[in-house]
């Protein structure tokens, strides 16, 4: 492939990283032109989110030598995005973010191919995600992160010694910002903690007591939440409030304003109303740029091995001076999402009841009062009586049948673990393998949560 001198000079900086060895490289690093070419040819990256972080990420990744990118986002462009989501123009307002972002980056950076997906992340089949080598997240909610994390960890498989199988690992790089603050983390399922291992890192949303809103509002946010949570239902019985409908938002704003006047409170504005109702913290373009840049570089490092990667959580706080710190977070060994689970081999004839008895004798479990769930089907519930009764007939059925005759799969159980006085309620992931069945592959599923 003949490359023009313009293309050669474009990769000059990247070449310095990829063509020569160095003291800080990863053990797997093999520098050379092949590496640069493989990056272009073999590596497929998914960017989740085409907003403040997503725009930056697409640009950064495209300029870092990645050629095959895809982007998924369910939102359309709004006027208020334009100050920082620099790939969008005024005439783009109303168009899907993913579509416009992909188009703009491809226009500017030749040779880059970006496919866009204008839909919810849950709308894509799981297979869609398995196609990518690495997933980069530019999201704004714990819920969306939790979903992608579960999908990526779902591909992970462990060997019989509970070691993750490298070819099944789907790494993620997660960025997030809130005003002056941000974080970057590298999630290598099975190796570093997954999102669910450390969900406590996420601040719980502040919620005001309803009676404060109703009776003793003290600030503008109280007035807005009153209009949003209480007054709306009172006036529009049955109609659900849609935060993306400007008429609804305007109504809440007007009501909040009236209430604020009544109580002599100031500070209710339309944009603050939007902020409170949609839980928006003003985004700062430069925070997004810093966080995205770190994410793009980590992605390059993970893929090429040209340097050691972030291990594994970077927090950045530019609010009061500047503080930044890297923390090596710990994996939770019995994480329901990324952990290996306990391997159990069974005969296909074992009934659910027999299986539950076995858990009581299992040296790693000693589980009593067991309830069992398999991929969203509740196989047996100890309580409440209404569910116990509905699931009781399953007890005499072979577990193999209840698991749709799947040779190997994940099942979740909960009950009381431990012995004597130390009994403790717990929830466990089990890797079930049925003996004497011919399988296509010989690896164990680890995901499923």
């Amino acid at each position, binding site marked *: 492939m003949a490359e023009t001198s313009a293309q050669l000079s474009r990769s000059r900086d990247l070449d310095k990283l990829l063509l020569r060895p160095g003291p800080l490289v990863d053990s797997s690093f093999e520098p050379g032109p092949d590496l640069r070419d493989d990056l272009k040819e073999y590596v497929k990256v998914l960017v989740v989110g085409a907003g403040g972080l997503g725009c930056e990420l697409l640009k950064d990744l495209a300029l870092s030598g990645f050629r095959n990118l895809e982007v998924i986002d369910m939102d359309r462009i709004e006027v208020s995005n334009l100050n920082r989501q620099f790939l969008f123009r005024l005439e783009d307002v109303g168009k899907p973010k993913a579509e416009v972002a992909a188009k703009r980056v491809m226009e500017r950076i030749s040779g880059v191919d970006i496919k866009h997906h204008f839909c919810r992340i849950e709308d894509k089949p799981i297979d869609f995600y398995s196609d990518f080598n690495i997933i980069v997240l530019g999201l704004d909610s714990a819920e969306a992160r939790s979903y992608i994390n579960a999908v990526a960890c779902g591909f992970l498989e462990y060997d019989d010694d509970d070691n993750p199988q490298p*070819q099944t690992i789907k790494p993620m790089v997660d960025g997030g910002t809130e005003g002056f603050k941000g974080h970057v983390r590298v999630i290598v399922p099975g190796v570093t903690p997954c999102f669910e291992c450390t969900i406590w890192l996420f601040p719980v949303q502040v919620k005001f007591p309803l009676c404060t809103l109703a009776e003793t509002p003290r600030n503008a946010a109280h007035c807005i939440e009153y209009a949003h949570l209480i007054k709306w*239902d009172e006036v529009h019985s049955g109609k659900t409030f849609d935060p993306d409908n400007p008429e609804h938002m305007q109504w809440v704003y007007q009501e909040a304003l009236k209430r604020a006047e009544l109580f002599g409170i100031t500070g209710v504005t339309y944009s603050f109303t939007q902020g409170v109702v949609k839980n928006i913290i003003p985004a700062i373009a430069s925070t997004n740029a810093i966080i995205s840049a770190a994410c793009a570089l980590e992605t390059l490092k993970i893929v090429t091995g040209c340097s050691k990667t972030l291990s594994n959580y970077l927090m950045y706080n530019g609010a009061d001076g500047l503080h930044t710190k890297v923390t090596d977070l710990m994996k939770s060994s019995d994480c329901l999402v990324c952990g290996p689970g306990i391997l159990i081999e069974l005969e296909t004839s074992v009934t659910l009841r027999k299986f539950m008895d076995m858990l009581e004798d299992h040296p790693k479990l000693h589980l009593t009062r067991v309830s069992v769930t398999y991929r969203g089907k509740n196989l047996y519930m100890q309580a409440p009586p209404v569910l116990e009764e509905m699931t009781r007939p399953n007890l005499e059925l072979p577990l193999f049948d209840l698991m749709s005759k799947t040779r190997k799969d994940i099942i979740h159980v909960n009950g009381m673990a431990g012995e004597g006085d130390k009994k403790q309620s717990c929830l466990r992931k089990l890797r079930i393998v049925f003996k004497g069945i011919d399988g*296509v592959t010989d690896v164990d599923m680890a995901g499923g949560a």
Partner: protein
Amino acid sequence: MIKLFKVKEKQKELAENANGKPPVKKQSAGELRLHKDISELNLPKTCSISFPNGKDDLMNFEVTIRPDEGYYTGGTFIFSFQISPIYPHEAPKVKCRTKVYHPNIDLEGNVCLNILREDWKPVLNINTIIYGLYHLFTEPNHEDPLNPDAAAVLRDNPRLFESNVRRAISGGFVGQTFFPRCI
């Protein structure tokens, strides 16, 4: 990891025709935790739970409370619960589906219970919330009013409050508001 990716690419081609894994239904970590909460429920005899969408949808359910002491004795009050996929990071959304004359529950069914909002902690569970709701009926309090009229009557004239509650749960007007019978 590029080398791994290349290996994977080849594997994919080989495995193209092999039959794959079972259809995957993602069970969120929230659902699993909820499964544990529900299977460990230990409700007082005054409370019961039902699952309108069947045994496999635990994320939406109803709790029925029939107080056997206090002002609300004999009434039947239904609450709907909606659980988020990131439960217990986020509290369940609870609404009272029975129109009730109560200082801490408004006429739209909003409930003022601290553990549902400002004091929710992931260590709490569904059982705690149900007990909290039950407690609202045995010990309604005028200090956290969502229905200020009812709260004022409870504070200033408990006897009138008692007769208002009786009238409401038997089906009748309290002031301008009609309450359907819920006994």
